[in-house]
């Protein structure tokens, strides 16, 4: 079997259902082997699209996403996608071609040290220098990507290795002596958790993306029910606990709900489950949950005591830890505490103004209702992402796919393509801003040609809204280069929109959709939002819907970076 054939053989053995990628000189052999294979291949229009599609596939399905790119620029184009997956612990195997082994280090055509470049943004990576190592390395890549704390693994394969022959079989299982993730939680620690819960009066569960990675949403819900504690989730954890439930505090942190942040600050016990105390969550870290004992359950020991001091750490797979904990933890009432929580929820709900124009929050609420919250939602990054997180009310894991850690604009659309390939029977909607969507708009070709019926909702404020919001609040309204109408005639110090502003905005998204063979709709009237969304859902194939919204609408509440999370800026509404 040649190296190229071994790669395809490995993908089959691993049950890979879809590949995303782009050919090139250093991977012709792999594509040649793919020619006779029945693994569906999706030719994206940019390697970044392929990486995000593999990521979206992985998030929507829980399986490993796979992408392929050639050496040099093909490989470097994967970098943003790999970093995105790395920050959010998403299992991806990326296969890159490399120049011939005898040319490595010679600055050969389309040569780049992708193993060096991707070292800090992958869980692990390999350069295959011997054909007989290839089966073992590919098996290791799939094993590493999905075990322990998941993450992307890159395998760089020189062209001559793809052509060389090996008689080594693809292993059925593998053991890496230096890699033994702790799966089972330490029982005495789990008992300590149980005791701390029994002794607490004001517990809060703070759940993150680790609950999704470990498919432990059911265990988490059961746990929350037993101890009758309110649950807040991180951006990555949205959906692990139904946000429609009375004990849900929704998201916490910089753009979290007031009641979630108040609950954290007043809690006497904070139970962190598969979360990592990111700065967007904690705000000023020494003021975060300062009245609480902290329990931290996570599969990755490095997350424990990295940002905050922890009283009871439990290293292990969340599903296992919660399963054991649920067996021994005693039921609680927390009556007074829950009354306080309900009062906060009543007094400080998320809200937005209603002034007759299209409010982005309203659009998101309508999408949630029209799809019965059964759709898979992806987002881009910025205001569109935060409004979605705030107003959709997620009820199921793996229905909100968003670049949390890296904050990658341009993620949502290709990720939606990957998610739709993974879940062909679901509705997949990318909620986008007019800035982000243009970062990977070329994937419209992929969506149209492969008949991937992704729906794109563009909340068009003609701005890079989140940066504009910071400029409005913290930079004295100096709107430097965040207006997407800005052109060659604008004065450098333009600070607001007015009569002299350019009327021209490009692109015309409806025409753009049509140019690619997709369908486009536009409206700027609030009463047309719902019918337009209905039209979108009833139109087969990819659809772009553009809603013109107000440029000045901000995301509230907001905790200024570095402030304690209970010191929030509230909205005007």
């Amino acid at each position, binding site marked *: 079997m040649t190296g190229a054939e071994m790669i395809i053989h490995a993908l089959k053995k691993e049950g890979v259902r879809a590949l995303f990628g782009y050919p090139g000189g250093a991977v012709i052999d792999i594509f040649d082997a793919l020619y006779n294979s029945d693994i569906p291949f999706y030719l994206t229009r940019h390697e970044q699209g392929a990486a995000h599609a593999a990521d979206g596939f992985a998030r929507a399905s829980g399986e490993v996403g796979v992408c392929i790119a050639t050496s040099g620029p093909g490989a470097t184009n994967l970098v943003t996608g790999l970093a995105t997956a790395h920050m959010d612990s998403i299992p991806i195997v990326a296969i890159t071609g490399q120049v011939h082994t005898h040319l490595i280090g010679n600055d050969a055509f389309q040569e780049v040290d992708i193993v060096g470049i991707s070292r800090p943004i992958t869980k692990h990576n390999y350069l295959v220098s011997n054909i007989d190592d290839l089966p073992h390395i590919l098996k290791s890549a799939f094993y590493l990507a999905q075990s322990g704390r998941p993450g992307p693994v890159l395998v760089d394969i020189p062209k001559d290795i793809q052509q060389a022959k090996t008689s080594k079989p693809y292993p059925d299982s593998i053991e890496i002596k230096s*890699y033994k993730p702790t799966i089972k939680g330490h029982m005495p620690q789990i008992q300590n958790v149980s005791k701390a819960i029994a002794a607490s009066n004001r517990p809060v569960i703070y759940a993150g993306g680790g609950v999704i990675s470990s498919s432990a949403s059911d265990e988490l819900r059961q746990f929350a029910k037993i101890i009758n504690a309110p649950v807040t989730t991180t951006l990555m954890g949205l959906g692990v606990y139904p946000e429609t439930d009375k004990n849900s505090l929704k998201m916490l942190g910089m753009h979290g709900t007031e009641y979630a942040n108040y609950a954290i600050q007043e809690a006497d016990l904070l139970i962190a489950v598969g979360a990592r105390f990111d700065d967007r969550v904690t705000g000023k870290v020494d003021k975060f949950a300062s009245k609480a004992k902290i329990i931290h359950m996570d599969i990755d020991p490095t997350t424990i005591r990295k940002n905050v001091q922890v009283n009871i750490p439990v290293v292990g797979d969340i599903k296992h830890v919660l399963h054991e904990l649920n067996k021994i933890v005693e039921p609680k009432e927390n009556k007074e505490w829950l009354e306080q929580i309900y009062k906060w929820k009543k007094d400080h709900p998320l809200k937005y103004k209603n002034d007759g124009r299209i409010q982005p929050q309203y659009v998101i609420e309508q999408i949630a209702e029209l799809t019965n919250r059964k759709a898979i939602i992806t987002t881009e990054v910025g205001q569109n992402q935060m409004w979605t997180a705030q107003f959709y009310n997620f009820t199921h894991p793996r229905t909100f796919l968003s670049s949390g850690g890296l904050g990658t604009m341009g993620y949502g659309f290709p990720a939606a393509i990957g998610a739709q390939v993974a879940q062909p029977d679901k509705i997949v909607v990318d909620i986008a801003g007019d800035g982000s969507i243009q970062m990977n708009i070329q994937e419209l070709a992929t969506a149209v040609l492969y008949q991937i019926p992704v729906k794109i909702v563009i909340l068009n404020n003609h701005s890079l809204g989140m940066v504009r919001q910071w400029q409005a609040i913290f930079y004295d309204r100096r709107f430097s280069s965040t207006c997407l109408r800005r052109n060659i005639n604008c004065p450098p110090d333009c600070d607001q929109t007015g009569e002299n502003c350019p009327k021209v905005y490009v692109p015309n998204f409806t025409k753009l959709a049509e140019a690619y063979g997709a369908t486009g709709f536009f409206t700027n009237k609030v009463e047309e939002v719902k019918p337009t969304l209905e039209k979108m859902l009833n139109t087969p194939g990819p659809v772009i819907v553009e809603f013109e919204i107000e440029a000045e609408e901000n995301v509230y509440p907001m905790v200024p970076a570095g402030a304690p999370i209970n010191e929030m800026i509230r909205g005007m509404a």
Partner: protein
Amino acid sequence: MRHIINLEVENNAGVLARIAGLFSARGFNIEALSVGQADPNATARMTLVVRGNDEVIEQINKQLNKLIDVIRVTDVTKNYYVSRDLVLVKVTATPTKRNDISQLINIFGAKVVDISNKTMILELGSSEAKVNAFIETLRPFGIKEIARSGTISMLRDSSGTF
């Protein structure tokens, strides 16, 4: 506080880059690093000397453990251990000074590995403190060049402190 960390690592290309990259990416400082391989078929051994408070050292230990190619991380400073630095010093040594230098060599247990009309090269393998003292003592004679290895260390099975 100063910690000496022994690593047993897979003998793969790029291991050193992974460890160096981890330290630079996370803002940890390496004071000394030594890498070597005792047996060509076996794993490789590295010794790191790092400085930091307890939290930093805990993170360094965990992050090193997380690297796939790292098999074992041992903070020897938590136990009884022996550690050695090796130094070569080229010192100005005209024939009239040679006797004085020879006395120092005896006191420190150093060796002469080269001698010329103007200089001597001296070798000492010892604890970090003793190597430091040796260098300071030679300084008045005029040091022309110093080459010093990173620390290597090993856990003791006895409870001695030397």
